[in-house]
């Protein structure tokens, strides 16, 4: 059975704005799944409906089921979901800027009463992320974007998750840093068997990393399949991968190719 199952989830903001219109998706145990889509397609909203953080933005899951590890998540508040093993790494990193990296890590351990264990976990994180260990005494707000993203991921790992919801880890990072972050994600998934649901606009990098992917557009899942199948799809190539064939721009007509699923 899958670790996370979304069945026909519908999200409404402010009681009027329907942002997600019946999304269903699955993440298997230790799976690596991407949710792709353009700006405003509803990717982040889907993640927040899973982690429960919608409540802070006056959003509400009005229909459908969110099942994690066989348990209904809709009745639990976000801290309770974290304790079940479901952690959300927010878009834009959201590190605690005035705390040091070490304090950032400790702040995420409210579920672990055992102090010796917390200490051990912090040391473990610093061996996995040596760049954070170098900056251990600086305020996290002054770390570089890549370091902050590493810190956000390390902080999420401190909660001992079964599934990480990873929102736009490549946001605002140089290409070589994107590669480094994606390597880290791959390693976490392979070594510790943590499942990952990755939301990305950078479809090229994401399809290279994951096993399966879903494509979301205007609040609906419009396509799903293995990463290879999606990467080969001409519509996806056109809309998200920047076109595979060479285009003669003199011959291009002045309308854009219609996305076929909108018909």
């Amino acid at each position: 059975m899958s670790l996370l199952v979304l069945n026909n989830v519908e999200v409404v903001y402010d009681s009027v704005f329907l942002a997600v219109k019946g999304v269903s998706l699955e993440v298997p145990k230790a799976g690596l799944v991407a949710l792709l889509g353009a700006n405003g397609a509803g990717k982040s909203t889907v993640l927040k409906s899973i982690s429960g953080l919608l409540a802070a933005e006056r959003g509400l899951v009005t229909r459908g089921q969110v099942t994690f590890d066989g348990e209904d998540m809709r009745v639990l508040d976000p801290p309770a979901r974290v304790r079940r093993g479901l952690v959300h790494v927010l878009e834009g990193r959201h590190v605690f800027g005035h705390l040091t990296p070490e304090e950032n890590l400790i702040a995420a351990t409210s579920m672990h009463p055992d102090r010796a264990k917390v200490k051990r976990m912090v040391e473990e994180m610093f061996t996995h992320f040596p760049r954070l260990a170098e900056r251990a005494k600086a305020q996290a707000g002054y770390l570089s974007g890549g370091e902050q993203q590493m810190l956000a991921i390390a902080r999420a790992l401190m909660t001992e998750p079964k599934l990480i919801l990873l929102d736009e880890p490549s946001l605002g990072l140089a290409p070589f840093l994107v590669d480094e972050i994606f390597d880290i994600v791959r390693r976490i998934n392979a070594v510790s068997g943590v499942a990952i649901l990755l939301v990305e606009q950078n479809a090229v990098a994401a399809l290279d990393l994951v096993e399966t992917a879903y494509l979301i557009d205007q609040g609906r899942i419009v396509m799903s399949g293995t990463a290879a199948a999606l990467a080969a799809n001409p519509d996806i190539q056109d809309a998200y991968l920047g076109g595979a064939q060479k285009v003669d721009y003199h011959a291009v007509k002045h309308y854009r190719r219609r996305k076929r699923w909108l018909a």
Partner: protein
Amino acid sequence: MEFALILELSVNGIFIGLMYALVAAGLVLIYKTSGIANLAQGALAMMGAYVVWAISAQLGAPMWLAIPLGLIVMFGAGLLTERLALRRMIGQPVIMVIMLTIGIEIMLRGVLPGIFGAAVKKLDVGIPNDPLFIGDILINRATMIGGLISLALVALSIAFFNSRLGLMMRAVSDDQMASWSVGIRVDRAVAIAWGLSATMATTAGILWGSTQGVDWSLSLLLIKALAIAILGGLDSIPGVLLAGVLIGLAESLATGLLDPLVGGGTRDVVASVIILLTLLLRPHGLFGREHIERV
């Protein structure tokens, strides 16, 4: 000007400043966790003093019982204020939340004297009133003991913010959404901050009530506390300690040295002038953290 007079004014001023700092530390505690300046802090101090007075004078409990009972009641009152009033304001503009705390302040200032009567109540906590002579200088025993108790409590709250629970409260003040996403129970952290802050306010209310009596004017401690918190930096407890001492000193020296020249009343001007100057010259205060902006 005699040296002994200045020394005497300074020493007493420092102790008074520490007693102000205790009220300011409560302000900082709430600001550090929820980012709100609680303008009802003075009224909470007044309420605490009234509660302790009511338990001892009305119900006849001895003082050693009335004080801990009062602290417990006020911890509960702090939790309730957060739960009933502040939690509804989540997601609302900051100005509305601040207006709400002003509303609580005005309400308490009207209701409590209304219930207990407006006459000044005598609150005797057993601190002897006779002055203490060290060499030539005369020290007010009540403010000395009050100052030392305040110092101990403020030091305790510094230690608290370095503990694990305190660390999580600092995380909440940095980013509530992120705190929530990594499993910190944000609402509980904010509620505890309100409870502790009300307890600190009560201690200050008892100390001040025992020196000047209990009536509505205890809520004016807010002005001094605001001056201290702004000068020290709204989110720095060590800043509160230093700023408290500075403001106590400035007040005491102004009263002793300027009052004879201008005919009195400089004491209350000092705090206002310090608020004004700090905001103009150093809006973050002495130790306040600056907004980190990466470029």
